[in-house]
């Protein structure tokens, strides 16, 4: 008897959960793509805070880090971790400038196809503009709160590096709310954005290194 009640209770909980997210119709997909493209075209800069959760299945807790991100059109990104450590990475053209608590280094991404693809992924996911890239198989989902797109790399070399990449878009604005990077081991990293401002002037010092 108790068992039956448990099953019923589980069904009651599970059915609405499953119903929350469903595949998008092609009209909905086109609408989302148009919304995100229009936003990307009018975005000259983004200032936002973020919280990153690294999930490893065997850990008791996700590893939580926090920081700030600045994007300047067309392709500059400053990614800064402030808590619990100081680490800045600046994506600028073909170069990656790193400041690890005062230890500075530069990586030339021109020499690595993989680095270039990762850079494209980061810049485009920040902008929300991953739709023009033909490197991924895309699947679209809709829930009452979010629009979600799952990107699976077509290139086998890339898929040994990343199994999939998910973006959650705010329904109203088309802005990226969350980025989820899924590893080939199925462990993942979630980055959730907050306190975002668009198209405000960028301090020139942000991209100095």
């Amino acid at each position: 008897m108790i068992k039956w009640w448990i099953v019923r209770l589980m069904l009651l909980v599970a059915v609405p959960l499953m119903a929350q997210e469903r595949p998008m119709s092609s009209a909905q997909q086109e609408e989302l793509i148009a919304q995100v493209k229009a936003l990307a075209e009018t975005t000259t800069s983004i200032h936002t805070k973020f919280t990153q959760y690294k999930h490893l299945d065997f850990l008791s807790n996700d590893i939580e880090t926090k920081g700030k991100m600045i994007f300047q059109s067309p392709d500059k990104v400053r990614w800064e971790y402030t808590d619990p450590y100081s680490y800045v990475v600046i994506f600028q053209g073909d170069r990656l400038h790193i400041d690890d608590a005062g230890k500075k280094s530069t990586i030339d991404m021109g020499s690595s196809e993989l680095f270039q693809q990762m850079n494209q992924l980061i810049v485009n996911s920040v902008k929300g503009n991953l739709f023009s890239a033909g490197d991924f198989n895309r699947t679209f989902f809709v829930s009452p709160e979010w629009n979600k797109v799952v990107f699976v790399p077509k290139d086998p070399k890339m898929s040994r590096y990343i199994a999939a990449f998910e973006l959650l878009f705010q329904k109203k604005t088309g802005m990226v709310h969350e980025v989820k990077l899924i590893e080939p081991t199925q462990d993942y990293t979630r980055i959730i954005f907050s306190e975002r401002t668009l198209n405000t002037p960028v301090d020139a010092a942000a991209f100095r290194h």
Partner: protein
Amino acid sequence: MLQRFVISCVLLGVLQSCSLALTKGLTAQPPSIVTLQNPYFADQAIDYVYKAQLQVYGNYFGGILVIKKIAPQQHRVVFTTEMGKSLFDFEFRQEEFKIHYIIEELDRKLLLNILENDFRLLTSERQRPDAVYQTPESNLYKVDGPKRWRFYEVDNNSAQLKRIVQTSAHKEKMAIEFSEISEDHAKKIKIAHFNLKLTIDLYAL
């Protein structure tokens, strides 16, 4: 006479080259303890998370090192970039070594051998010492191995494990230093190789 002098010189040279700087002037004694504990990665309830800084032949790399004891005598060791991308994911279970994941760029036998050796030494908990060398500051417990020896340096005042040194019969090969220790948690760890230009500095997050 000359012959005897030459033989003495050769013998002296051989004996000196055989002796380790670490135990120079010290006498081996039977160990006073049966087992020796490395307590720093021994608690299954703790996620050990470190900011890592690597210096490899003049090149600098940063990342996050995660170590977790997942069962008795079983550890997972994962290294990720600051942005969360996993670079390698290893599992150590007694003598077994399993690679769950490694990016292609790091999948090199020589590097894997070094990483396996270093992280096995870092996480292995119990040793059976074969001898002890005493100094006024510390006890150096020697653990014999098939090719290499290990020395565990335990501080006399605090009774804390301060250092593990791996050697050949003649030379120190690498050392792991533990510092800023509280309640069996080493906040700062330095892994240094003497025959390779490789150092790894770890700071607990």
